């Protein structure tokens, strides 16, 4: 009952935020004009400028915030569960640095400048990064343990980071373009591309759903999971793939939005406890809420300019995380020993 009301209120909040997102902007379009347009006022409907702002700027941006927020939230929850590390963020598996390296190589050597181009190179870099991490983590007798996964991720991530820095240092124009991309922003996304990315994100979510049972056994420890007939190593490989699909698409769409993947599972966990299915659902819902609110705030705080959304999430999110810790709502992943 409590869960159902929580889901319903989340949807209600998301609905309200979508409305705000359509009404509020950094430009000089007034809220009442935007409201009138949404209500179908015929004189406002024929206003080309208003039509452009709402239909091609705000609407795609709102949809993108929902998609990216849900995907990053779910990816963060998966990653934290599978690595048993409450600090796990998508940066941890070298995913962000893989994407960054892909984009930089694209910009520098192949003159990529279109949104679709960025996206494909980011996705390519992500896949390369994750495959290398998995190859490193699976070699050897011990199998895929959380520690191996994290260390492999850190190692590959740093290598990619180094390569990226090396290319950028020797090339000023790439640096300017990269600097814009790396801050992460939802401004200027194109609806077609968002919808195309769903082909990557939806399989990621499907995979996450299929993993729920095995993941919940995994929180009892590898030994117990294995004696219940699960294969911890394989679960980690599949979960890593799901995380890659989800974050790869998001990073490609909006740049590396850090902290969201860390924050929303923690908010979710303070409501859902140990059940993985609920954790994934609420991480997705809270991801949407957090990203959409942050994106709306971005447009207001330094009007008529915009703040990058990742900066906003970090600024507003950090106090939220601290509140969770202080109010004892934090249910840790590092469970106590139960004997």
């Amino acid at each position, binding site marked *: 009952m409590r869960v159902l009301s929580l889901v319903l209120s989340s949807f209600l909040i998301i609905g309200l935020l979508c409305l705000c997102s359509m009404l509020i902007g950094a430009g000089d379009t007034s809220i009442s004009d935007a409201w009138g347009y949404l209500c179908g006022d015929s004189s406002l409907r024929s206003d080309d400028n208003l039509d452009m702002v709402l239909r091609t700027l705000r609407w795609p941006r709102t949809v993108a915030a929902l998609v990216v927020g849900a995907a990053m939230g779910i990816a963060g929850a998966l990653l934290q569960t599978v690595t048993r590390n409450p600090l796990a963020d998508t940066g941890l598996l070298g995913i962000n640095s893989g994407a960054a390296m892909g984009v930089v190589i694209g910009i520098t050597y192949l003159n990529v400048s279109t949104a679709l181009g960025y996206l494909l190179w980011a996705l390519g870099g992500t896949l390369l990064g994750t495959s290398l991490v998995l190859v490193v983590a699976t070699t050897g007798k011990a199998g895929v343990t959380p520690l191996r996964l994290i260390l492999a991720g850190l190692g590959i991530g740093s290598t990619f980071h180094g390569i990226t820095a090396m290319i950028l240092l020797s090339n000023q124009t790439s640096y300017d373009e990269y600097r814009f991309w790396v801050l992460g922003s939802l401004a200027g996304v194109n609806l077609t591309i968002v919808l195309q990315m769903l082909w990557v994100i939806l399989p990621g979510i499907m995979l996450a759903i299929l993993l729920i*049972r095995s993941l919940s*056994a995994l929180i009892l420890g590898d*030994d*117990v999971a294995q004696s219940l007939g699960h294969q911890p190593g394989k679960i980690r490989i599949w979960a890593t793939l799901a995380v890659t699909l989800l974050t790869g698409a998001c990073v490609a769409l909006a740049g590396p939005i850090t902290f969201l993947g860390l924050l929303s599972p923690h908010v979710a966990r303070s409501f859902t*406890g*140990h059940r993985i299915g609920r954790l994934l659902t609420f991480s997705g819902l809270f991801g949407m809420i957090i990203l959409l609110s942050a994106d709306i705030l971005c447009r207001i705080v330094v009007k008529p300019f915009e703040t990058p959304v990742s900066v906003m999430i970090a600024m507003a999110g950090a106090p939220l995380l601290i509140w969770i810790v202080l109010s004892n709502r934090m249910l840790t992943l590092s469970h106590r020993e*139960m*004997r």
Partner: protein
Amino acid sequence: MQLQVNDLHASYSANTPILKGVNMTADPGQVTIIVGPNGCGKSTLLRCIARLHRPERGTVMLDSENVWKIKPRQAAHRLSLLPQSPMAPEGMTVANLVQFGRHPHQGLFQQWSDQDQQAVTEALELTHLADLAHRRLDQLSGGQRQRCWLAMTLAQQTPLMLLDEPTSMLDLGHQVEVLNLVRKIASAGDRAFVIVLHDLIAAAQYADQLVTMRDGEIVCSGAPKEILTPELIRELYDVDVRILTSPDNQTPIIVAKQEQLV
């Protein structure tokens, strides 16, 4: 189902063998307890049987099946394990935990069946936890919690049950509670229990078959009454003991000899 371990060799790194050709059997309806000094390889032996550590040589047979040659899920129908320090997330209830025991019997899209419910109820009753089913694990005592883990493995309904140090970290009362329960379940059904215990005194009291190990080899095995001698214990642990007999059920009681101070 009979467990038969043949010529088992295992190690963690190439030059340090842990098991050097272990042979043992465990029969249904019996409690087999493996004892030996620290580092003798008893936990490794259990992990090899439980498919958690791949042996280099030798076989682990359940009747005519090699446990290392069957699929993980099929294996989980035949043997279940209670590891040494199991973890449970905060907020989980007793029933939540016990239901995990049904995982090997459920498919990805298979709903919770009557059979599953029955197995869980049965496991809760066997372990006297029916009244606590909706309590949270973190509100229970150590002994109750260990009974919950036992209930989870019981719900798995496997003919072979492997318990790794089920009583370490429990006080005497809870130790007796858990071991009595295991004894009772073993004699009531046709499950075979294989337990690793560091507590020789408890092992002597509760085992049908005692398997003693030292340096990766079996020293001897059999009913505690028949095999336990001061010489054997001297060989295993390098201590001098006296062996007395329990006035209740004639099981051996081991007492370390006091050093002469005068």
